[in-house]
């Protein structure tokens, strides 16, 4: 299955059982990411974008009260058909993740070097301490950290947020995963650092040949990073298109409202927009040239 | 409140805890009505029936002077609960105030109050209570005093830590900016947010106070005869094991069930109220 997409979601549904009954959170999400593609899933808080990431990582499948239906295929393999152990084995090897706040995502009681070795051991259990350190240093050099020895001997809290973000990117790509999931990367950082991080991430995923699922609420960041964009609203995909086309001519009422609501650095004031609108529930808008792959 | 009760009763384990606590509390409150021999709580002697095994007339047997054990256990619950309630009613306000003031004001006030708390915490509780009881007369009042002295520091610590965390919350800043006074901020803004943790600890502690009081009277330092007390019943009966087993087993079981019940409810409350925040 060499032509299978790196990630394929088909009619993904998620419901939680609670005291008040069953609440459906995702109402049938279909999306795909081909090898080396950078695809954004953009939506507001509560839209279901973060739970989608957690399902792809296989983190929600074993949670009591979560009911998942539909397909999740990573490199053609159905997550639901895999054992729990096999799903866990995917993480850190075939897919990895970059978090919103890099400083809290790194364990404060271990040195960066120790954590790096752990990451490398997941793919190569036999790797020696020295080889791991050399490999880690090479990876840090790739993310423009030119004094890797100091960073490897440091703890996360001794480094700046931007530095930790680079360490996280290097770690996430250390085992050349097929899929990188980035959940609001850099949102916790200053704008100038965020801009650098984005550029760095773009270069790194290209060098390592990783596909990216980029989850964000920030339209500007999405426009800068992604090739293709899915817009998610209340557990449904409402628009899908190539980044340039989608930003140039947004078709769905919700996307248009989102776009209009972003304040412009060229000025023009804050538009008068409704927070909610019946038109937001309209069916999905598809741009030319994008479609979900045929069922196999 | 109602929601809390519903969740409590839905879980079998916590429902069992509620059942135990309800049994203990109700029997203590209604002791005069449900007990077959109310007069046996005092200095009654009935040599005709002394040291009898459980029977239809005496479901838990009789003690060495012929008093009905069941009646005495139910009255002992009343004394233990009274002790627990009074101890907490004194210890909790003291501890909570110390913790709030130290945690919110900080600086030198915090230093003095928390070091004082540490001093109390560093003395083993039973030793402290024993020395107080040793100096004073071993009466019920002094027993309460002793247990109270060793209980408030735990609340001071708990509330101090909670206050330190709450102090950083935006609503505290908002109240300060609004011009609310320190006392208001401590007692009207921060304290309500500590209440779930305090209530949980109080529930757990009712069981522990009963246990500590029993330990004291087991050592002969607690409630004095002829007032019935679970600890001294166990102590008195221990000499006659294993033949007169009912003398120790039933009071022991009574302690166990009460402590177990309060713990079950306390643990459940911790989860329910904790998840609320």
């Amino acid at each position: 299955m060499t032509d299978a997409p790196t990630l394929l979601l088909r009619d993904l549904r998620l419901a939680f059982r609670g005291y008040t009954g069953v609440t459906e959170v995702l109402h049938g999400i279909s999306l795909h990411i081909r090898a080396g593609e950078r695809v954004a899933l953009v939506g507001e808080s509560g839209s279901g974008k973060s739970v989608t990431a957690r399902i792809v990582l296989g983190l929600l499948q074993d949670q009591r009260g979560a009911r998942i239906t539909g397909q999740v295929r990573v490199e053609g393999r159905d997550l639901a058909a895999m054992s729990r152990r096999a799903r866990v084995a995917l993480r850190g090897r075939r897919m990895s993740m970059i978090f919103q706040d890099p400083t809290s995502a790194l364990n404060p009681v271990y040195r960066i070097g120790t954590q790096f070795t752990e990451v490398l051991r997941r793919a190569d259990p036999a790797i020696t301490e020295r080889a791991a350190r050399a490999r880690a240093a090479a990876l840090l050099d790739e993310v423009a950290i030119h004094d890797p020895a100091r960073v490897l001997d440091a703890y996360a809290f001794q480094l700046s947020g931007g530095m930790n973000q680079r360490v996280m990117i290097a770690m996430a790509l250390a085992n050349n995963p097929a899929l990188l999931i980035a959940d609001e990367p850099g949102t916790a950082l200053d704008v100038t650092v965020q801009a650098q991080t984005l550029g760095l991430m773009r270069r790194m995923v290209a060098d390592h040949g990783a596909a990216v699922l980029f989850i964000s609420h920030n339209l500007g960041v999405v426009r800068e990073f992604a090739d293709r964009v899915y817009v998610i609203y209340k557990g449904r995909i409402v628009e899908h298109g190539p980044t340039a086309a989608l930003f140039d001519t947004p078709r769905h009422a919700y996307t248009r409202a989102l776009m209009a609501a972003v304040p412009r650095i060229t000025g023009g004031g804050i538009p008068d927009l409704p927070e909610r609108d019946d038109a937001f529930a309209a069916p999905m808008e598809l741009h030319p040239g994008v479609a979900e792959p045929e069922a196999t | 409140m109602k929601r809390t009760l519903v969740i409590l009763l839905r879980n079998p384990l916590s429902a069992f805890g509620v059942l135990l606590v309800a049994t203990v509390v109700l029997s203590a409150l209604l002791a005069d009505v449900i007990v077959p021999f109310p007069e046996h709580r005092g200095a009654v002697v009935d040599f005709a029936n002394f040291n009898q095994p459980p029977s239809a007339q005496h479901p838990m047997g009789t003690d060495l002077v012929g008093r009905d054990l069941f009646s005495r256990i139910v009255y002992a619950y009343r004394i233990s609960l009274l002790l627990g309630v009074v101890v907490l009613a004194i210890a909790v306000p003291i501890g909570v105030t110390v913790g709030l003031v130290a945690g919110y004001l900080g600086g030198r006030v915090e230093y003095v109050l928390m070091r004082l708390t540490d001093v109390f915490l560093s003395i083993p509780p039973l030793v402290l209570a024993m020395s107080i009881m040793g100096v004073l007369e071993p009466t019920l009042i002094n027993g309460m005093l002793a247990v109270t002295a060793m209980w408030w520091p735990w609340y001071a610590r708990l509330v101090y830590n909670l206050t330190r965390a709450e102090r950083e919350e935006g609503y505290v800043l908002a109240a300060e900016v609004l011009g609310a006074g320190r006392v208001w901020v401590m007692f009207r803004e921060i304290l309500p947010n500590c209440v779930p943790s305090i209530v949980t600890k109080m529930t757990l502690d009712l069981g522990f106070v009963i246990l500590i009081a029993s330990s004291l009277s087991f050592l002969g330092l607690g409630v004095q005869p002829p007032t019935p007390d679970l600890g001294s019943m166990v102590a008195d009966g221990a000499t006659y094991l294993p033949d007169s087993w009912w003398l120790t087993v039933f009071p022991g079981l009574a302690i166990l069930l009460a402590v177990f019940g309060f713990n079950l409810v306390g643990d459940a409350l911790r989860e329910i109220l904790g998840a609320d925040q």
Partner: protein
Amino acid sequence: MATPFLSIEGVRRVFGSGAGEVVALDGVSLQVARGECLAVVGESGSGKTTLANLILGIYPPSAGRIMLDGAELPARRRIEHRRAIQLVQQNPLSALNPRRSVGASLRLALDVHAIGPRAGRDAHVRRLLEEVGLPGEFARRAPAALSGGQRQRVAIARALACEAPLLVLDEPTSALDVLVQARVLRLLDDLRRQRGLTYVFITHDLSVVRNVADRVAVFERGRLLETGPVAQLFAAPAHAYTRSLIAAVPVVTPEEDALRARIAQGGPAS
């Protein structure tokens, strides 16, 4: 500018002492006119939060003075100073006491400053809620039952309750979704015009600044780099740091791309 409404004169603030001394703010002088919205811009460690806390009187300046309407604000603020300067915080989740109803949180403001007759205060609370675009019945609700945007509106209502002429807005919309942000920004703008309020708007988001502020003050590492009318600052930023800030803003239109590119190259913005 005749008499500035808020005047910050040579303010310095130091935390800690000896070897652990940190200068959070140094040599800062700023004026804000009545009815103006001044944006205070900077990244983490720029001193913008310290400035907010100094204005609010959370702690006093180590040197310099802060004047409100021509009178110096004392280190220990009196109740009327508290009433004059109010705050809207970044995190709407923590800004309201979770154990108290929305109405009770607003009542507190009225009670502390004895605003209006006691009997009329509940009605006053409902009017305040309606003024920020919420139904009056929300007074009975717990903060947990409100969305982030609704809570932020309640926080704004609380600031209005004191009838404070000066509001310090500390990243008031950065935790909100973009559609909600637009609504709240419009509300703040409308209130400023209707009530003649003065804002010190603290933010890291330059695209928000461009659309709501009259003037901008750019901070870096505790120092005031430049101030100027918003249009001028975005057309021709004087400092390289300001240029790098503007060039880093993620944007959504080709016109913005062009502006960013011009500014990044250091040229004038057409």
